[in-house]
């Protein structure tokens, strides 16, 4: 049986932990708001880009002369998995869910006899995939100490990926990140980056309107330029969504932890009071029976 002093210490320690998780939750909430704003304000650019790209891509009739970034290089042998995760843990299943999805796909690809290469962005993904796929790692980028993600970060990754593609180091690139659905729901997602997945032209009006656009210097050149830009835009979107998801995930994880700590404190306090009362009763009985014996 733990002594009263032990139990007091235990309660104090759980309380201290609760304070930490509570603070982390509030910090995550503040960061989440900022990350959400960043993701939101990045949306117009991506949407315009998608629109123009979709129109242009639908016009490329001749598949042979089309840019490789759009139609691929005709092979499907070497797959590059770009796995985006967070720099830090304590955010629920966020990192492990992304890593799990990437791991499943990698195993599937290996089972089909494909070659898998992995490019990790963020420390946690590298840590959890290293044991199994350490030999497949080709690149890694960490954002340790980066406060605010900006487009240059995405551009840096995009340049490396494009460089590898042009050197023929891989045929297909897929991006793994966590899509931010809401504060409580984040969905690990795989997005094919190269060859580009072109969104369908939804708006019939936009379709006809674009038919009369003229292109300068030429359609092919504009398309080629856009496709390169699209890679960094998609990567940037992935980074921002991931940042928002990470904070959302951390917030709910820390909320749970705070609540669990509260439950634990209640239980321990009840136990502590019972024990204290039992001790008092015992002492009284000893005194009374001592007095009776006289």
């Amino acid at each position, binding site marked *: 049986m733990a002594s009263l002093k032990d139990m007091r210490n235990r309660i104090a320690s759980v309380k201290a932990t609760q304070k930490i998780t509570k603070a982390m939750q509030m910090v995550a909430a503040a960061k989440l708001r900022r990350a959400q704003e960043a993701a939101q304000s*990045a949306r117009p650019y991506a949407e315009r880009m998608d629109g123009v790209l979709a129109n242009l891509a639908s016009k490329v009739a001749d598949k042979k002369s089309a840019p490789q970034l759009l139609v691929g290089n005709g092979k499907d042998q070497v797959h590059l998995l770009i796995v985006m995760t967070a720099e830090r843990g304590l955010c629920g299943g966020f990192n492990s869910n992304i890593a799990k999805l990437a791991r499943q796909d990698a195993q599937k690809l290996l089972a089909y006899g494909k070659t898998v290469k992995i490019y990790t962005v963020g420390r946690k993904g590298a840590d959890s995939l290293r044991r199994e796929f350490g030999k497949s790692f080709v690149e890694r980028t960490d954002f340790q100490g980066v406060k605010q993600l900006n*487009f240059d970060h995405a551009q840096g990754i995009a340049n490396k990926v494009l460089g590898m593609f042009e050197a023929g180091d891989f045929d297909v690139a897929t991006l793994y990140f966590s899509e931010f659905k809401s504060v409580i729901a984040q969905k690990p997602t795989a997005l094919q980056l190269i060859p580009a997945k072109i969104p369908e032209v939804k708006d019939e009006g936009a379709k006809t*309107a674009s038919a009369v*656009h003229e292109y300068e210097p030429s359609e092919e050149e504009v398309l080629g330029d856009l496709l390169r830009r699209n890679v960094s835009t998609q990567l*940037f979107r992935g980074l921002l969504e991931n940042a928002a998801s990470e904070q959302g995930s951390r917030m709910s994880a820390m909320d749970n932890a705070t609540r669990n700590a509260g439950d634990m404190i209640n239980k321990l306090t009840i136990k502590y009071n019972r024990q204290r009362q039992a001790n008092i009763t015992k002492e009284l009985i000893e005194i009374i029976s001592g007095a009776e014996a006289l």
Partner: protein
Amino acid sequence: MAGTFKFELVSPERVLISVDADQVVVPGAGGDFAVLAGHAPFITTLRPGVLDVLAGGAKRRVLVKSGFAEVDPSRLTILAQAAYDVDEMTPAIIARELSAAEADLAAAKDDAAQSAADSLVNELRRISAKAA
């Protein structure tokens, strides 16, 4: 004058400018062009350079580094990878951008990259001369 049109300057991070403009001069890849309301629809890539925005009598100059422009009769959308308001550029920013651009110029492998870096360097020198 045919009136105003909607002008939007969008960077990957956010919408920088969204105004009704009278005229915008855009540094296109194939040469500068001015957009007025009712311009024929077309899409072009940009070279680094300065946008001259004329909106409601006020003039703004914005430096853009590569991107593309989408022109419609009632709208001009510019997607720029990076943009700075020229009036708000401090000597420190200019110096930083200039040295980055000069490094790009030195490292440029093909003609297109070289001419892009070259025009950015020239533009930045002009701005810094004016600021000094």
